[in-house]
């Protein structure tokens, strides 16, 4: 890990340079060790890259370097290589790569970055290997390469003779890696795999219950650990009944960690190590700890909300100021004022946090469902004083990510415990640990005022946003960009931000920031549309205006800077057309609503159709998503699954999710009081459409989530006349008569 990192996307030119340098330094990242699996890794071997191996038997193995957590990259990115390589998907082997910065470069999965960061490279990788195999065949037959073509895992000559890739691997290994200019990418119209619906490569293992996940790791002689932390965030251990715990059946050891002093690293607590998970869980019930809860125990959500309301009219830090918003509001034909509030929420991955670690001979070997191997290894190195080259990390499948496993707290806990135990040890968090010691999506409160003129045009927008931070800066997703839509589009605009500094741990939650700002702002735009008596679609198109690009104004750099208004306009019209916006008359209790959002490089517009029963019961009858994620949907099944999942997640989060913090601790404990959406509440119908454009292919783990909640809330308003200004929905009375 002392080698230069590849944390930035590697351009095509760089790839070629790196390949040309095979044998040293950076080139290792793309260096295939051997043409055949049995051969030694020496310079000059068939070395297309580190991601592809072709065995003499013909078996093609593609290494998936990015962690898989349900977003589908373990299938979709290898599809790109297989497409260019011309190998049949059936029979292909995909291995999860271990953490290896030199070999693979950036391996973190988050921010919907896996696809855009790897897509072009993987095309070139696959095509490079194919080119070398074709060259090997041409050399074998002593014919021009132009007379040879690759298909179905073999090279064919115009004469009709053919050689399978496995037969060519050894010869290919002796050839130089071709320059980029000598590698021809396939014409997209010839794609056989990309754009098709391909089931996940791990499907069989999933449906038969084969071990895949972090929690399924099993090692000879393994012990099982739990880790008790202070209910109030960051509280320290004063004393614990360790002697009593150590005497309990099945318990091997119990000890205290003082923690690294940071609320998102190794936090103070008591570890219990036992012969089985249940022995550890049982012993924990007998554990008695006296905590020093510290000043965080004086902090409560309700207290901050009350303080925000007191300070709403006071000035905050100005994020953006265009025109004269107060004068515009004073002169507006209609003014709407509203308070929007959303709570902290948890990630609630269904697989509780866990990690298995083995400390032996100065090496820390770890198996973990992490999203961020480099961050996790770095934290272990820093906190436990282990050189990074003495950390071996195996990435397991994760039972859900949603941003939670971008934090490495559970990872460092396991490694710290392992350092004290003469055996491999698996740390398992309980569901209660998971809900009470998450790194939460920060809650927030917005005090909004908007004005429309006599012509129904939105002329003024003012917002004072109250957010939460830890250690002096806002939590992930808790910082409002100066450019957040509709900033830049409204002539008289002012946004201000006030942060409450807390000791509460916060972290990225699926589409950080966007997941809440889209709800607030597209709900409020809807309020302005109704106040002006305008159609919500028409008003949104008017706000977007005629320009095709809106440059960023220095305050925000998301999506590489700039907002492609044309893409959003097109996708919004596409969604409206697919839905049939404005074509249907609804009875009271039924209605449609829409919203759009740009985040994580994706342009998404969505329309919801809902029924609200007289008793207030919400049902989403139909949900239409229109997505512009560029030129190519990689795996259509995976892409649709991400959008469908985003719709259900957006709805579920809206309906019930709420973490309440009182006296510095979470009051919820399990799915009994932190209910997740169930099948009975899922939409009846979800339709997903992709608008193919000439833009680069981008990711889909996040961008389809943000507009879901506002589309549904706007539909609820259309159905009932009730405006939802607080999450979760369970706090709003939707009954009507």
């Amino acid at each position, binding site marked *: 890990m002392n080698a230069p990192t590849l944390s930035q996307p590697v351009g095509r030119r760089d790839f070629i340079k790196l390949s040309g340098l095979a044998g040293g330094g950076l080139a290792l990242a793309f260096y295939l060790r051997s043409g055949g699996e049995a051969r030694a890794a020496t310079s000059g071997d068939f070395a297309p890259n580190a991601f592809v191996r072709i065995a003499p038997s013909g078996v093609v193995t593609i290494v998936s370097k990015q962690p898989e957590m349900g977003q589908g990259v373990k299938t979709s990115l290898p599809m790109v290589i297989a497409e260019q390589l011309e190998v049949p998907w059936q029979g292909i082997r995909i291995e999860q790569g271990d953490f290896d910065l030199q070999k693979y470069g950036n391996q973190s999965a988050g921010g919907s970055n896996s696809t855009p960061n790897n897509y072009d490279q993987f095309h070139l990788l696959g095509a490079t290997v194919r080119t070398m195999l074709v060259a090997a065949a041409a050399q074998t037959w002593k014919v021009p390469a132009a007379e040879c073509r690759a298909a179905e895992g073999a090279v064919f000559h115009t004469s009709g003779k053919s050689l399978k890739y496995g037969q060519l691997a050894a010869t290919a290994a002796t050839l130089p890696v071709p320059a980029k200019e000598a590698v021809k990418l396939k014409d997209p119209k010839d794609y056989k795999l990309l754009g098709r619906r391909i089931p996940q490569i791990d499907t069989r293992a999933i449906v038969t219950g084969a071990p895949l996940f972090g929690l399924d790791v099993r090692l000879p002689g393994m012990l099982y650990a739990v880790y008790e932390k202070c209910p109030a965030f960051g509280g320290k251990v004063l004393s614990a009944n360790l002697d009593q715990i150590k005497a309990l059946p099945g318990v091997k050891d119990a000890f205290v960690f003082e923690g690294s002093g940071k609320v998102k690293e190794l936090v103070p607590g008591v570890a219990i190590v036992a012969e089985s998970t249940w022995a550890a869980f049982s012993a924990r019930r007998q554990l008695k700890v006296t905590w020093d809860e510290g000043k965080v125990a004086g902090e409560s959500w309700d207290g901050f909300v009350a303080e925000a309301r007191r300070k709403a009219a006071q000035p905050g830090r100005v994020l953006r100021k265009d025109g004269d918003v107060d004068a515009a509001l004073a002169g507006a034909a209609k003014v709407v004022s509203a308070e929007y509030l959303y709570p902290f929420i948890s990630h609630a991955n269904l697989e509780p946090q866990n990690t298995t670690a083995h400390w032996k001979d100065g090496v820390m070997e770890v198996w973990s469902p992490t999203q961020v191997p480099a961050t996790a290894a770095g934290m272990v190195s820093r906190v436990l004083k282990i050189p990074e080259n003495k950390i071996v990390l195996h990435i397991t499948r994760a039972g859900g990510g949603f941003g939670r496993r971008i934090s490495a707290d559970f990872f460092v806990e396991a490694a710290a415990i392992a350092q004290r135990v003469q055996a491999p040890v698996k740390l398992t968090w309980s569901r209660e640990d998971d809900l009470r010691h998450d790194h939460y999506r920060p809650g927030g409160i917005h005090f909004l005022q908007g004005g429309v003129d006599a012509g129904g045009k939105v002329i003024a927008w003012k917002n004072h946003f109250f957010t939460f931070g830890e250690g002096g800066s806002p939590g992930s997703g808790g910082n409002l960009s100066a450019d957040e839509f509709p900033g830049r589009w409204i002539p008289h605009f002012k946004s201000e931000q006030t942060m409450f500094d807390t000791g509460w741990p916060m972290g990225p939650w699926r589409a950080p920031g966007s997941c809440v700002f889209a709800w607030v702002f597209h709900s409020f735009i809807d309020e302005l549309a109704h106040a002006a008596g305008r159609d919500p679609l028409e008003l949104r198109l008017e706000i977007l205006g005629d320009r095709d690009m809106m440059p960023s104004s220095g305050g925000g750099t998301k999506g590489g800077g700039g907002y492609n208004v044309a893409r959003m306009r097109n996708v919004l019209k596409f969604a409206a057309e697919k839905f049939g916006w404005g074509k249907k008359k609804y009875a009271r209790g039924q209605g449609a609503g829409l919203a759009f959002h740009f985040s994580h490089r994706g342009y998404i517009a969505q329309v919801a159709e809902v029924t609200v029963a007289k008793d207030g019961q919400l049902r989403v009858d139909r949900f239409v998503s229109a997505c512009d994620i560029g030129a190519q949907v990689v795996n259509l099944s995976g892409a649709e*699954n991400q959008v469908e999942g985003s719709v*259900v997640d957006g709805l579920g989060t809206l309906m019930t999710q709420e973490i309440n913090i009182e006296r510095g601790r979470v009051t919820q404990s399990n799915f009994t009081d932190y209910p*997740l959406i169930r099948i009975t509440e899922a939409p009846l119908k979800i339709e997903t459409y992709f608008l193919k454009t000439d833009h680069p292919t981008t990711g889909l783990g996040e961008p389809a989530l943000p507009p879901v909640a506002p589309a549904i809330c706007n539909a609820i308003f259309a159905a009932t006349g009730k405006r939802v200004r607080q999450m979760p929905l369970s706090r709003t009375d939707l009954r009507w008569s």
Partner: protein
Amino acid sequence: MKYTLNVNGQSRMVDVAPDTPLLWVLRDNLELSGTKFGCGVGQCGACTVHLNGVPARACMTPVSTVGRMRVTTIEGLAAEAARLHPVQQAWSELDVAQCGYCQAGQIMTAAALLKDNPRPNDQDIDGAMAGNLCRCGTYLRIRAGIKRAAEIAGGMKEASQ
């Protein structure tokens, strides 16, 4: 305490505390990790197994209460290794899973539903599956998967008649 359990048609002996949930016996003692831990309080359904063919929450079933009941886990659902259960086949065809963590429990519940009701409608499906959480939100594919499994099972039944 020593217990002899009937798991996936095999007799398995374990020596564990009587209050150990079947979930942890399966996972830690019998190396059957397909049955998942999600909540420990019977709320998520990730640990669903069949006891005498009836879906049960393994996390809420102390090993001492299992007795001679037949325990079927996801690993034992397919009648033979080469041929998957219709629900497993349908899940594979329709690419139901995202992260996949809950799916063993979903499949076990769905398989029990189809045994009782070979042609369930949406209401039947929602009613039967309401106890199984999917954090990734694959519920629409679960509905479709159960209908597809019903077709597959129907076809197999016809073929065998």
